[in-house]
């Protein structure tokens, strides 16, 4: 069986198991329908819906993370060819990383890593 065929079969299986658990909960549970509730914040009712434009303070860190994540796309195939390509592979990759680390150092100095 090819590698990804096994994965597809496993995915189908696990989804079936999840459906079976929900079916078992519906059949065997004490109540068939869910309980309508108010979201819990300690006992007093909330004033608004929670769906809102959440102020995510770590947006600068998310941009930095994207830059590094794109770099990782290069690093994964790089591991396959280190000794084949020789020292230039190591030098190039770690120079690239040093440049990115300079960016991290700048972000750190600017306080992007401390948001609360």
């Amino acid at each position, binding site marked *: *069986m090819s*590698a990804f065929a*096994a*994965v597809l*079969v*496993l*995915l189908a*299986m*696990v*989804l079936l198991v*999840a459906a079976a*658990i929900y079916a*078992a*909960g519906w059949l*065997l*549970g*004490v*109540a068939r329908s*869910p*309980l*309508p*509730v108010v*979201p*819990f*914040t*300690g006992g007093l009712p*909330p004033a608004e*819906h*929670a*769906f*809102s434009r*959440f102020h*995510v303070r*770590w947006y600068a*860190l998310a941009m*930095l*993370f994207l830059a*590094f*994540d794109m770099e*990782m796309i290069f*690093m*994964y195939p790089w*591991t*396959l*060819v*280190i*000794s*084949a390509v020789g*020292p230039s*592979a*190591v030098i190039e990759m*770690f120079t690239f*990383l040093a440049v990115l*680390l300079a960016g*991290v150092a700048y*972000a*750190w100095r600017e306080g992007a*890593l*401390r948001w*609360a």
Partner: protein
Amino acid sequence: MVASAPPWAVVLVPVILAGFAFAAAAADGIFTARAAGVRLTGAVAAAPLAEVARLLAGQRRATPAADRVLWRSGLIAVPVAAALAAVVIPFGSVTVSRMSVGVVWFNAMEVLTWAAVWMAGWGANATLGLVGGYRFVAQGLAYQLPLMFALICAAAGAQSLNVAQVVTAQAHLWFAVWMPAAFAVYLAAVYAFSFLGPFSYPAGRDLAGGVMAELSGPDRLMLQAGRWLLLTAGAGMAVPLFLGGGAGPLLPTWVWSAVKTLAVLAVLVWARRRLPTIRADRYAEVAWVVLIPLTIVQALVVSLVVLTRGGVPL
């Protein structure tokens, strides 16, 4: 040599994963009972099964105007991600999926949890859950890169992304011995992506359970089981990546795989309650300023070693 398992063995992946997860949860119950001064009985060790029974029979809850599609998808995606991540873990000397990019696959499946836990937090239309979901993403931004560098170290040490070859490359010396920083970072990341232990910030008690605050019944079972399955999958992956897979004297390889997985799980479960929660806003600074340079230096060391050896495993 890690060979392909027969096709029917796919069925065993979730079974074995669930078995180890149950053992981990049982051990956790035992440690908790010891700490609380409760007498240890068989019931304490079987507590995870009792919990499953309680949750199966429980009633679900519906918050007003909840986003039901996102909510349920998020909940189901967590254990599914764990099972998919575990498909590349060899058990002994057989593996269900001989993917040539197994290491990347594991990483990709673990990243699914980012979307899943955020959806679980958002979908409930509850403030505490919402804060919990965003906390997980913030935590993710901190742990993910050191984890990726740790995986790169293991892959570079074997010059392959195929998990089977990573196992073979450790025939003479385990990676955990000469890549200790990568191993330590990997174990911390296992706590982080299963949000257990010191990284249970998204589901913390200060948020009344965070992403789990509005869950009951089978919904809660999905997410709670998902966390333990993720922990188990992470511990299971540590064995071929850093601890030599099934290699060992005397006993068959699958026994060694199981023993090593249980050992890693034991350490993770034992240390789980011994540290305060590490919050993402404090951890991000440490992760980016200390751990990333550390793992980069570790990767440099590994690549230099690989260069000097000319591709022959250490």
